[in-house]
């Protein structure tokens, strides 16, 4: 309701003030541009490129981070070895790595996926590590008393038990991955939604620019929804438990 009201204010405010229109065009015009760009296929190809980079970066990061997180969480020796490095790199804003990546990998897909992986690893790694480290001793001992080897304990006990923590990390990384892809595309890309948005801004084409912004937001929204659905399905066993706790 409030949202609709704001949109209406935007629409009329923009139409009534010619000065505003160059950088805040009417909503209706933005949607018209959006429709034209989508139909012409131009925006869709940028979308696909961004999506592809996102998926590569996010999935690669998730795989690396979950495995590394479990190892660092479970094996105290490994953890103490890497602790200093992690605590040092962790607070660094991941976008700062983009120029470094450009230097090392040039501009293009490899660089963009690389920075996405770098940024997306952190939330999953930290959350996974935390989850594993805080698992109940009794739970691990239960796995051990059944004479399971380490690999089986990690796969059958540690991984499922830490799953809620891992999922939290994955959810955070989802947003971060999209942010990094878009940012990297803006800074040093020649294709993709991030590039498109910046490019349209430079060409003073604000309608198209906003159209791009809307599309990337929609992408983020859809990805988030899909994640929540997937999480609901995978973590079915928790839902009832949490529901009971909240009573």
């Amino acid at each position, binding site marked *: 309701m409030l949202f609709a009201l704001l949109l209406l204010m935007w629409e009329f405010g923009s139409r009534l003030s010619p000065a505003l229109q160059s950088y805040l065009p009417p909503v209706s015009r933005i949607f018209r541009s959006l429709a034209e760009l989508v139909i012409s296929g131009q925006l869709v190809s940028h979308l696909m490129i961004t999506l592809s980079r996102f998926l590569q970066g996010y999935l690669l990061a998730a795989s690396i981070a979950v495995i590394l997180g479990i190892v660092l969480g479970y094996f105290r020796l490994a953890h103490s070895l890497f602790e200093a490095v992690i605590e040092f790199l962790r607070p660094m804003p991941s976008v700062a790595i983009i120029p470094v990546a450009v230097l090392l990998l040039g501009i293009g897909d490899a660089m963009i996926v690389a920075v996405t992986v770098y940024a997306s690893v952190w939330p999953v790694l930290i959350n996974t590590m935390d989850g594993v480290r805080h698992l*109940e001793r*009794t*739970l691990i*001992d*239960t796995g*051990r*008393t*059944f*004479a*399971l080897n380490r690999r*089986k304990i990690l796969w*059958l*006990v540690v991984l*499922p*038990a830490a*799953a809620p923590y891992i999922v939290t990390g994955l959810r955070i990384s989802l947003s971060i991955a999209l942010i990094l892809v878009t940012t990297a595309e803006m800074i040093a890309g020649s294709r993709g939604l991030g590039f498109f948005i910046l490019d349209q801004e430079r060409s003073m084409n604000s309608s198209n620019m906003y159209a791009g912004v809307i599309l990337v937001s929609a992408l983020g929204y859809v990805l988030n929804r899909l994640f929540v659905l997937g999480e609901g399905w995978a973590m079915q*066993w*928790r839902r*009832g*438990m949490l529901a*009971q706790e909240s009573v």
Partner: protein
Amino acid sequence: MPLLEVQNLSKTYRQMGGDTTVAIGEISCKIEPGEFVSFVGPSGCGKTTLLMSIAGLIAPSAGQVIIHGKEVSGPPPNLVLVFQDFNKSLFAWRSVLGNVRFGLEARGHRWRQGEDKARSLIDLVGLKGFEDHYPWELSGGMQQRVAIARALAYEPEVLLMDEPFGSLDALTRLELEDTVLQLWEELRTTILFITHDIEEAVYLSDRILLLSQRPSRIIEELPIDFARPRNQVITRSQPRFMEIRNCIYQRIRNESALS
């Protein structure tokens, strides 16, 4: 040859400040196959440490545990420990059936194979109909039954139980005592049972080993020869039952007074 032998076992814990606590002073005992043996002792006397050492989950400071002639150095493959804290031991992400299946999977059964066996065990512990429930949906007593069924699905030769009914209410405890006896009669597993409930030990066991205060050692061994199957009313109302119980109680009180 006894199935299981504890030889001069001792365990010392090192604390943060450099202090040491001698949990187990020196314990030696022999367990024959099929026996139901209880360890009884005052709180903090190292009963859990003892069981964890036998289970290979803790390394002793001195002495050894021998099973089938082989020294234990890590969880042996024919033994399972049922923990006191079933809440922290059961797998929240698996249903009752899934938890029991875990015991079979650990045994090496392929996924589909063990379903019938799992279901019959669930029935045996009195949880028929709850196969698809999750642990959080069950009462404490039911959860412990699941833990027991899961342990039995592994087909262990030796079942260790660490105060399994300690956190349950009195009535549930009596129920589960009988459930364990039934299972034991049927499966003839060797059971090592820890409890601080003297009467429970007398009711269940073939033999009771009394532990002293920390640093613990075995101060007495009592054979219990009431007729089996035991009965909550008949067995417990025998005069000899109370005699034994009082004797144990006195012994433990004297031990506590000494320290």
